[in-house]
């Protein structure tokens, strides 16, 4: 049997965990000006007034990665990626809702 000398503690990337802009950039391996352009495109909504004091919900990490993939693969600009991500979010919400209602109807 394998024994473990330690148990890894992860950071949940959810909307309740807020990350400062420097960590946010480091975790994503991106430059700060790129994050600033995402904010400008309305793709991210940071807390804090000045760029140096921005913080972001950790759930935005997945959003930034997806935006980067969309920009790279589909040749859309950031505003386009923001629209796609919002619509995808809405689609997921509606799918969950639909699945729930379908199961309730079956009973």
């Amino acid at each position, binding site marked *: 049997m394998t024994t473990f000398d330690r148990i890894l503690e992860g950071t949940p*990337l959810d909307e309740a965990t807020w990350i400062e802009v420097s960590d946010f950039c480091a975790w994503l391996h991106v430059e700060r000006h790129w994050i600033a352009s995402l904010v400008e495109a309305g793709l991210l909504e940071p807390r804090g007034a000045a760029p140096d004091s921005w913080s972001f919900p950790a759930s935005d990490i997945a959003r930034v990665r997806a935006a980067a993939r969309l920009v790279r*693969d589909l040749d859309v600009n950031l505003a386009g990626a923001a629209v796609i991500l919002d619509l995808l979010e809405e689609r997921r919400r509606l799918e969950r809702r639909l699945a729930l209602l379908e199961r309730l109807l079956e009973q």
Partner: protein
Amino acid sequence: MHYKDYYQVMGVPRTASQDEIKRAYRKLARKYHPDVSKEKDAEERFKELQEAHEVLKDPEKRAAYDQLGPDWRPGQDFRPPPDWGKGFEFSRGAPGEGPGEFSDFFSELFGSRSPFGTAHGAGRGHRGYAAAGQDHVARIEIDLEDAFRGGTRTIELRTPELTADGHVMVKPRTLRISIPAGVTEGQQIRLAGQGSPGLGGGPPGDLLLEVSIRPHPRFRLEGRDVTVTLPVAPWEAALGETVSVPTLGGPVEMKLPAGARAGQTLRLRGRGLPGQPPGDQLVLLRIVLPPDSPRARQLFEQMKREVPFDPRATSGQ
């Protein structure tokens, strides 16, 4: 190694112009992009498409690929010709992001060790050059109870590693991780430094665990809210009795409002998945008749006689 028909993958004739190839790529990329697509095999199709596009968009690579001739069938056993790449001028640009993940066919013809590849991984071996390791993403499936309580789990991962001679080898590794209470479907957990090692002294990448929660026979999850269907007797609903309701944290007592209706949803605040704010438990009432018996029948007969009631009087039927 099997031959890949890149023209077939992109759905264009061998005579297609570079513009047609670009348009075909964009159209198919929209259809199969894993972030957007609902197709079952989207990820695989998109990878194939990227590979085909990587070759066909580049006039040099395309010309070399075309020289293999039009007579190959997709999947046919293939060996590159001994003079592969001879007579072409190459621009040794930085390799695209994909090649490591592309097929053997691609790696052999256009990968880092082919005439088209970047010499000795240029850009990586430079003195003073350091880069962070790649982040890895792995999916873990947990039970709803684990999401509620949190706990430690042992996970086995198969990690692809690049060997010294440039091949990809899959290495198994086992990690013991702590699952925080209140994780939700699709949420990621970041394990710092558990991704690929960094290059030239750069920091290692992270491991991102994407949580998927197994369907539960009794509770249904929507975000942090948990829904349960609760069967109640007609008199419990009519009289508004206190009943026991299963929740993830164990059974709780709930007072039904007098005259509760079937299909009505009652909310137990804060009894869903923990978080800030915690989710609620939604209790959907389902009215169940008692099993048939002479006594039950007798009482229903009595109600029929003594309680004037037409359930359809107001429903417009």
